[in-house]
């Protein structure tokens, strides 16, 4: 069975103007939202206390709020978490207050309401630790990008390296942008998902580049754009199938993995879609814009012999 038996090649790269405009618009919107609204950072980064509790019946959020208000936690965020019986309460750090015992204190306040409350999860992150995590997270993303840039430069050529990193930056910015625009909670697991997307999107980009390199070496004639277009078409089957299988498992994770993993899986789903698009358009376009040519990829002398021998 084949999903894609193409009669003729799709001319991906002739539409690159539109793609560039779309990408730039998305990136600009993301950065703008990022600058104006920022991210809805979880307590992993801001510090604070998070309490997840389970009620025996559907929880009455209004009653919980007024209970908390009476207990001196008027500024606490109260929301359902996954099910109507499960409630998530967040308290942000406040000056002059020792937050260390707040998890237990909050539980006491809730139990004071007379209902059976089961403690499911408490997280307390000191402001200092939050600060450290934010710094480490940012550093991790930067460090990953630099390492990847170096690897691609080594294995391919600097124009490709710039192309792949442009694609990655594009993906990460858009994921962060979507989390910012919709103010989805951004915690440590989302950061992990963003880094996993870097890995995935790169995987995709490398496969495209790999074929471009092979074709540049094989078909010496022909313009760069034509060869790149042909390469993208040749591996289109793989690109679609792999994205599909990955999306299948992510959909399973999103649907069945529970509330704790829903943010993580939705970040990855966005990432896989954006990453697939970017490995076709952003990575290739950037390399093209940098005037990539067959000359850039001529193999060192000793490898020429091996090239034909495989087939």
């Amino acid at each position, binding site marked *: 069975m084949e999903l894609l038996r193409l009669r003729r090649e799709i001319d991906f790269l002739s539409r690159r103007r539109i793609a560039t405009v779309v990408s730039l618009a998305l990136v600009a919107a993301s950065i703008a939202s990022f600058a104006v609204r920022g991210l809805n950072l979880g307590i992993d980064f801001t510090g604070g206390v998070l309490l997840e509790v389970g009620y025996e019946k559907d929880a009455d959020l209004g009653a919980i709020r007024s209970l908390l208000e009476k207990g001196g936690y008027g500024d606490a965020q109260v929301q359902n978490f996954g099910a109507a019986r499960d409630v998530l309460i967040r308290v942000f750090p406040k000056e002059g207050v020792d937050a260390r015992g707040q998890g237990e204190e909050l539980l006491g306040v809730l139990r004071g309401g007379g209902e059976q409350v089961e403690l499911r999860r408490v997280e307390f992150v000191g402001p200092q630790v939050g600060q450290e995590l934010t710094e480490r997270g940012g550093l991790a993303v930067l460090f990953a990008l630099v390492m990847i840039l170096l690897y691609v430069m080594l294995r391919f050529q600097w124009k490709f390296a710039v192309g792949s990193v442009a694609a990655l930056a594009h993906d990460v910015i858009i994921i962060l942008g979507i989390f910012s625009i919709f103010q989805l909670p951004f915690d440590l697991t989302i950061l992990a998902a963003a880094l996993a997307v870097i890995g995935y999107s790169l995987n995709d980009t490398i496969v495209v580049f790999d074929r471009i390199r092979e074709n540049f070496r094989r078909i010496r004639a022909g313009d760069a754009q034509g060869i790149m277009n042909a390469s993208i078409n040749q591996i289109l089957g793989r690109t679609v199938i792999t994205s599909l299988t990955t999306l299948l498992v992510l959909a399973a994770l999103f649907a069945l993995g529970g509330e704790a993993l829903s943010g993580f899986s939705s970040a990855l789903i966005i990432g896989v879609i954006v990453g697939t698009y970017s490995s076709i358009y952003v990575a290739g376009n950037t390399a093209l814009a940098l005037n990539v040519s067959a000359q850039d990829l001529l193999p060192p002398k000793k490898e020429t012999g091996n090239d034909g021998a*495989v087939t």
Partner: protein
Amino acid sequence: MNRYPLWKNLLVLTAVIGGALVALPNIYGDDPAVLISREDEREITELEADAVRRALSLAGIEYIGAQERENSVLIRFDSVDRQLSASDFLREELGPGYVLALTLMPRTPQWLASLGLKPMSLGLDLRGGVHFLFEVDTEAAVRKRLEGYAEDFSRRLRDEGIRRSAQALDGRVRVELRRAEDLAQAEALLTELEPELEFDSGTDGEAAWITASLSAARLRELRDNAITKNITILRNRVNELGVAEPLVQRQGSERIVVQLPGVQDPAQAARVLDSVATVEFRLVCYGENQFEAARIGRAPIGCELLEDEQGQPVLLRRSVIAAGGQIVDARQGFSEDGQPAVHVALDGRGADAMLEATQENLQRPMAVVFIEQKREQSEDGGEPVTREERKVISEATIRGVFSSRFQITGLNIVEARDLALLLRAGALEVPIFKVEERTVGPSLGQDNIDQGMRAIIAGLLLVVLFISIYYRVFGMIATLALGANMVLIVALLSLLQAALTLPGIAGIVLTVGMAVDANVLIFERIREELRNGNSPQASIRAGYDKALVTIADANITTLIAALVLFTFGTGPIKGFAVTLSLGILMSMFTAIVGTRAVVNLIYGRRRLGRLAV
């Protein structure tokens, strides 16, 4: 023709069979169990173990096994209810001197256990438990040491009749001398007293000064010591809480991480672990008017003004009869009139002091002072400040002479239980402060496991279904590879005993999606070769060979991202990085070498008309 040399086939076979064996302990599940050990950490004797078994049988609590393990006895139950009732019963029956911990014991059969094979260890988010990160106030250790020096210096100079003042300031001891002509003598004396310190001195008109500071090496030693001692105390406290497989470990230069899987009362753990609460026994300043002292805000000489729990003023003598550090045993119990109490026993020195104090002060009141350190965020958002809180919890007339054994009242039952535990386990060398806590209740842990497993199975089925339809025979071969991949990941996780976390499960799910990629690349390449008119055998060979470079390049870059995650990430993120990396590495083996072995076995030896790809 496509054939694998024998060694390659054997390699694949060995890896899969070996992996299956190592992964096997994971299918047996766990039993709820109670772990009994002696508080003094001596071995439990055969006799004691028998007594436990008999007691359980007599009480009619069924258990499914009892075995001796290291210094303890492990009793397994077939349900959590039985486990809980047994633990309540045994706690009562055995009395003090024994530590009981509730735990889950894997049901690994003897023959597997004797091979040293264990199931994966589950992270706290999957089995429930608490994770704390404490910061040790090592500056307090340095400050305390310097204050000690300042006192010693002052005493030594006073003995020589030198007029001086000494105090600890900004990480140094500064001694001020009234007369500059004393400088040489004073400096010689102090250098002789503490030759390891670094001294500096100067004159200031008539007066002179000497400063002494700790060398960098001494400072480090002091800080390390404070942390090591605190870790010991934390271990004691954790043991008192009764946790089966606790982890108390230093992290970085001044942090300690404590993980208590499956702890029954996370709230108590949170209250007790970082508590610096202790008690002091002092005489009341008899015959002084405390209300007058409170009104003018000044205590008479030799007395100190404190408050009791109702906020009423109490005047206590400054000298302490005995303090928490001299308590060798403490048990929560009840006083004669049924009030919650802590029964304490003092060491020899404390007992002597108490005997003397009670003899001399019959019919006069004595007080128990409860001391607690609290840390508060300062108003300007800077470093938190520590405040010591002292309050008088009980005041009673000495009715008879006593020495080592007596009781403390004036607490509620929870406070009494916590205080008894703290006094038994010892006081922390320097204060510690919780900077991170993650508690997961047992029911959420089980939910996480169930949901994670369901997601893995569903994801796996969807992918298997899809590729089997899309690539037919080759797709089914890829399915085999995917199965082998899962087995190998579980095997490696079991071997490494790296904790499986919820993000770790997500990593496995993601691996399922990405592991197929290697096969997709190969199969698409084979199809391409076939379309170009190559023979099936040549297409298979070319497909595998050409795809290899691409797969390697693509996977190495993903590995880079996973390694960065591992290096920068903490706890749960590390778990994700571990399973993702293992998954990628294993998929390279199963998807390339593994599927090729099977393809060669099926197609390798014959001439082929067409391929089912």
